């Protein structure tokens, strides 16, 4: 395996780089989009149920079907990485919009009431109180979305763009175990590392959450 790695280091590294890009760019896009969407689902209570239903449906679309279907809608080339990024962004939004809404809804009403009674206006209430208090729930969702994206990128290899997934196809085609093993190990390591980084961020930005009863670690 070491032998394979040294001989193909450029290929493996390129695959890893592509994998990271394809997995994490959608996390950023999806997270940025999910914040306002989730907020709307709380601000206008009648929107909440349509919102989570839509999210559920979107998330249930098989990834391969979405990868193949998107070029039809977007007019992109079938082999374009944009398809993967868009598809994974959709999954991330589907996962996180609900998390953001649920996180904001989980904020104790006595807390928001006290804040309002002390003279917070709506925007500042959201930014200074509601979002920070919802953060442990939101970051827990972000962990799931990130790890899920990292595993989904490999599916993209079936349409030619798949980061570490390319090592699997190569291994299958050549009846060769090494690239498959390397692909699996790197995927798992990448997922673990990304998860760890988010946990560390969580510790740093929500130091208070450790003391909450039943709160996220």
């Amino acid at each position, binding site marked *: 395996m070491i032998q394979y790695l040294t001989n193909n280091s450029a290929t493996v590294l390129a695959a890893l780089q592509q994998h990271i890009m394809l997995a994490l760019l959608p996390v950023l896009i999806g997270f940025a989009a999910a914040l306002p969407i989730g907020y709307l689902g709380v601000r206008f209570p009648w929107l909440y149920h349509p919102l989570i239903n839509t999210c559920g449906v979107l998330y249930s679309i098989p990834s391969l079907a979405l990868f193949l279907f998107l070029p039809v809608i977007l007019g992109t080339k079938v082999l374009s990485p944009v398809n993967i990024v868009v598809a994974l962004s959709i999954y991330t939004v589907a996962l996180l919009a609900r998390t953001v809404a649920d996180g904001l809804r989980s904020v104790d009403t*006595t*807390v928001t009431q006290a804040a309002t009674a002390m003279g917070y206006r709506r925007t500042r209430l959201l930014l200074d109180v509601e979002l920070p208090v919802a953060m442990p729930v939101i970051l827990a969702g972000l962990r799931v979305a990130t790890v899920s994206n990292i595993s989904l990128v490999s599916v993209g290899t079936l349409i030619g763009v798949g980061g570490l997934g390319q090592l699997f196809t190569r291994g299958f085609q050549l009846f060769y175990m090494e690239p498959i093993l390397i692909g699996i190990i790197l995927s798992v390591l990448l997922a673990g590392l990304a998860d760890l980084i988010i946990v560390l961020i969580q510790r740093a930005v929500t130091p208070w959450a450790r*003391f909450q009863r039943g709160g996220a670690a």
Partner: protein
Amino acid sequence: MITFDDVVKVYPGGSTAVDHLSIELPTGKMTVLVGPSGCGKTTSLRMINRMVTPTSGRVLIDGQDVASQDEALLRRGIGYVIQHAGLFPHRTVLDNVATVPMLLGRTRREARKAALELLERVGLSEDFAKRYPAQLSGGQQQRVGVARALAADPPVMLMDEPFSAVDPVVREQLHREFLRLQQDLGKTIAMVTHDIDEAIKLGDMVAVFRQGGHLAQFGTPQQLLEEPADEFVAEFVGRDRGLRSLSFDTAAKVPVRPVAEAADLVLDDAGRPEGWRTVGGTTAATGGVFTVSDTLRLVTDLAISSPAGIAVRVGPDGKADGIVRHHDLVDYLAARREDRAAESRA
């Protein structure tokens, strides 16, 4: 002064929460709104800081209609304490207390300095400043809640069941501390509770509400106990209101007899009461003594509970200087009641 001027609140669906309420909450005093659940007391409280908008009528603070003021600015000038404190879980105790000064545009440094002083004022040491609310007990959280409400030194404070969520021992302690604090600060306070004993203990004035948002009676605690406006108030105030009303008078006018009349009272060499001589020749504990500044309730209790049916009065030096027999006390209380009745007729 907080004025309710013919205030009505009808919720969509037609239920009346507050029915033509007109009362004045005096400046610098604590007014308690008390009543069973669903009587409109909390709704009334929340109209003061515009958390609830009246259907008709006006609420004024020092003559100014609250409806004419900016909501957020009005609220920053009114302290607010609620059950379970409602502290921000993501901020330290110190930053929780600094909230309103920060909203008012003071620097973090100034706000924190003021917050630290307030923590001390409500009986929390500096060690608590860096902790998060989840690390505090219920009673400690409530103290932080009070400190937070006081942080910007608002002239008016609203308190919604502030002491209901803590156990009785802690509640007693918070009551004592709060009364002491209020004595220093003299805020205009409106407090809601469902506990009539708490209302009578803490309130300078008490407004008793009944179901449907009617004001049943508005008066001093003593008035409620001695002259309940109707059956509802009498029932709500409780069965032993006669005994409790004795807490409002001192023992200054109770007729005493010479100490020598109490044959079984054992005194030490200095003339201080030691106990009661029993049939077996031993000495039973005095069970307590009173001074002229103690309440009539204490005198009554002593007269009933002491083995001889006698309450012993002591002077400032601790020496026995008089005794009260319980039949004398009964005569005195009867005469006092007649005097009062005559007074209120006049």
